[in-house]
């Protein structure tokens, strides 16, 4: 239906979008979530979570290989009829909206806690939406370039975290498997939410320049995300005592508070301001994907009208209602289930279905 000429993205941009939308806001409280379940063994759960996400990611790529020149919705219309495509597009539009809204709300809450406590939520929302609009309306290529740029300019951040190792207590990591494997397996649950975002492959795949690298891309993206999480989690665990790691809401930010420079106090302020770029890697791609889904339903090429409607809806909606921390946490807990179904179970089932239907077809034709 669409032509993808001139809308292609490179492998690195593909990785940037996936990794970026996985990391963004989820990294902030991941160490706490893990330690609530498994204390300082939580980092082991990350590795299991990574393996699971690889299976899901490979399943998504596997599905797309059946229909390389279209999105998931084109594929479903081809195999099951247009109603299935429309249904999936509606479902995924809602899901992308969920991810995007969660990202925006989290960002605003963090900004309000640490930077601008007296500024109104809808003012912050409008300020975030303006740059998002100007990037998204130019289409997938600009979104991909933006993601790539942010990855490049954020490369220095891990080095600052190494600075906090001055106060590290490595002995906190011992003993390994203190309560056995059961808490670790419970902690795997906490690794699902931070890995969400892979599903964007369903729509990005036809845009990919060299499709044979898609498998490599998803493996690299998930591994980068996992290594980053592992790094941050271990830093938090050797820095905070085991009792404290349950206590700080956003340990990734609290860690920075101890860094002292002669020329600046409260080092976390410029950091959180910079983090807004990284946070934006969830809502900007998701905003594009969401509007793409809507445009697809109405068989339109341009995403202009749904995008504008969305922006207005968000800005006006925030004026009347804005979630609190508790409601946001509730949203995240629900997102776990929704994400688990849409990103982990759905692709695997779909892959089985496609494989079986192909198998049956071959059986029939050979008869």
């Amino acid at each position, binding site marked *: 239906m669409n032509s993808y000429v001139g809308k292609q993205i490179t492998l690195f941009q593909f990785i940037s979008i996936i990794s970026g939308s996985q990391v963004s806001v989820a990294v902030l409280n991941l160490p706490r979530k893990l330690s609530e379940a498994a204390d300082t063994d939580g980092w082991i759960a990350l590795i299991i979570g990574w393996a699971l996400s690889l299976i899901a990611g490979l399943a998504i790529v596997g599905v797309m290989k059946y229909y390389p020149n279209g999105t998931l919705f084109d594929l479903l219309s081809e195999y099951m009829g247009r109603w299935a495509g429309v249904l999936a597009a509606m479902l995924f539009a809602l899901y992308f909206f969920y991810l995007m809204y969660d990202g925006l709300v989290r960002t605003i809450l963090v900004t309000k806690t640490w930077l601008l406590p007296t500024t109104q939520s809808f003012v912050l929302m409008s300020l975030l939406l303006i740059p998002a609009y100007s990037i998204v309306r130019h289409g997938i290529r600009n979104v991909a370039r933006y993601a790539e740029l942010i990855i490049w300019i954020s490369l220095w951040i891990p080095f600052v975290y190494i600075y906090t190792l001055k106060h590290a207590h490595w002995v906190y990591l011992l003993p390994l498997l203190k309560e056995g494997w059961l808490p670790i397996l419970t902690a795997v649950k906490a690794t699902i939410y931070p890995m969400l975002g892979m599903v964007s492959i369903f729509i990005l795949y036809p845009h990919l320049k060299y499709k044979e690298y898609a498998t490599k891309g998803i493996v690299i993206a998930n591994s980068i995300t996992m290594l980053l999480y592992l790094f941050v989690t271990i830093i938090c665990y050797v820095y905070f005592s085991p009792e*404290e790691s349950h206590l700080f809401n956003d340990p990734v930010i609290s860690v920075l*508070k101890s860094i002292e420079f002669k020329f600046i106090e409260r080092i976390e302020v410029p950091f959180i301001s910079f983090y807004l770029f990284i946070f934006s890697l969830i809502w900007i791609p998701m905003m594009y994907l969401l509007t793409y889904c809507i445009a697809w339903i109405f068989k339109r090429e341009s995403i202009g009208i749904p995008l504008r409607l969305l922006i207005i809806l968000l800005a006006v909606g925030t004026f009347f209602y804005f979630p609190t921390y508790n409601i946001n946490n509730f949203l995240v807990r629900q997102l776990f289930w929704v994400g688990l179904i849409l990103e982990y179970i759905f692709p695997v089932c779909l892959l089985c279905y496609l494989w079986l239907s192909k198998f049956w077809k071959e059986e029939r034709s050979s008869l």
Partner: protein
Amino acid sequence: MSSSITRITLFIVIMLLLSSCSDQLNLENATTPLVLGMDLDKNKKFHFYLTAPVFSNRIKKKSIEMTGTAKTLRQSRSEQDAQTAGSTQGRNYQVILLGRRMLNYEGWFQMLDVIYRDARNTVTDRVIVVDGSVPEMLYLNPPDQPMLPILLRGMVDSTSSHSETVSTTAHELHRQFLDKGITPYFSQVKIIGGKVRIQGTALVSKAGIYKGMLDAQETVLLRILQKNASPGFSLSYQLPEEPKKSPFSTNTVSFSAGKVKTKIKTSFKNNRFKYDIKVSMVVGLSEHLFPFDVFNDSKRLEDMIGQQVTDHFNALIAKFQKLKVDPIGLGVYARAYEYKAFKKVEDDWAEVLSQADITVSAKVTIASMGPIK
């Protein structure tokens, strides 16, 4: 047409948003307290104290002190504003002073909650206990010393850099209170002869009750056991084997340590924790007041010093066990290596540790004897 409308709309929206910097504060209107003091008076009433620098040519005194009573720190904000020309910004204290009398009661640590909860506060302020009353120290203003915040912070930072006291920040204090395998410690100051001076390190129990104090030399040993001693600290001991010509302590040997290695072995046997701590130091002699042939007989001197250091370590451990404190954080090792046994007693750790079997042995190697033979 449509794009120009979009542009104009965007422009107007941005202009409207940017003009909303309503919570600005000019520097002239701000008072920035650098010391936060807390103390109880004779009737156990909570008082807070602040000093802030004054930037003005016409005022001789360079600082302004504020005081008042309040239920909590945050509540004291209005009282603070009432005493100064500008709005008080209690956001970046350099030093938090605790009165000695406060440490007789549990629960003072909870009073500090606002420092951790209000995200805009710094948590790198040094926590210091005053042996005496906080107001006395705050109103001292000796003419020949710098302003109190600068003086205190400088004193703590420089003394702790050669390990003679500890530099506990508010953040570190939080860790020490919450981690079940360690008890808190911070530096202690006192007014002696009209001057502020560092006394050493105060030790408090998990509940925050004052237990005792370590002097400079004991603090050095504590920091060695914590594996936290910065190289370059110096120790002096009097060797009983050498002759002493009173009134001078001519049997003294001093050395500064270079490389220090601390090994802590933890085990749990017969319902008791057992620690085997081995310290090895490579030192350079800086003085020995008695004649000694270091060149040929260094082994004997090493043994004599090693014996002294070992004795002092063991005396220090005995002191901790008597006071029922664990500033070394031996509980952290217990958790790491004997998790099951520790988990059972973690809420009562200091008591259990006082029954533990701890031995320290120190080995000293002389690396250099200085330019004189």
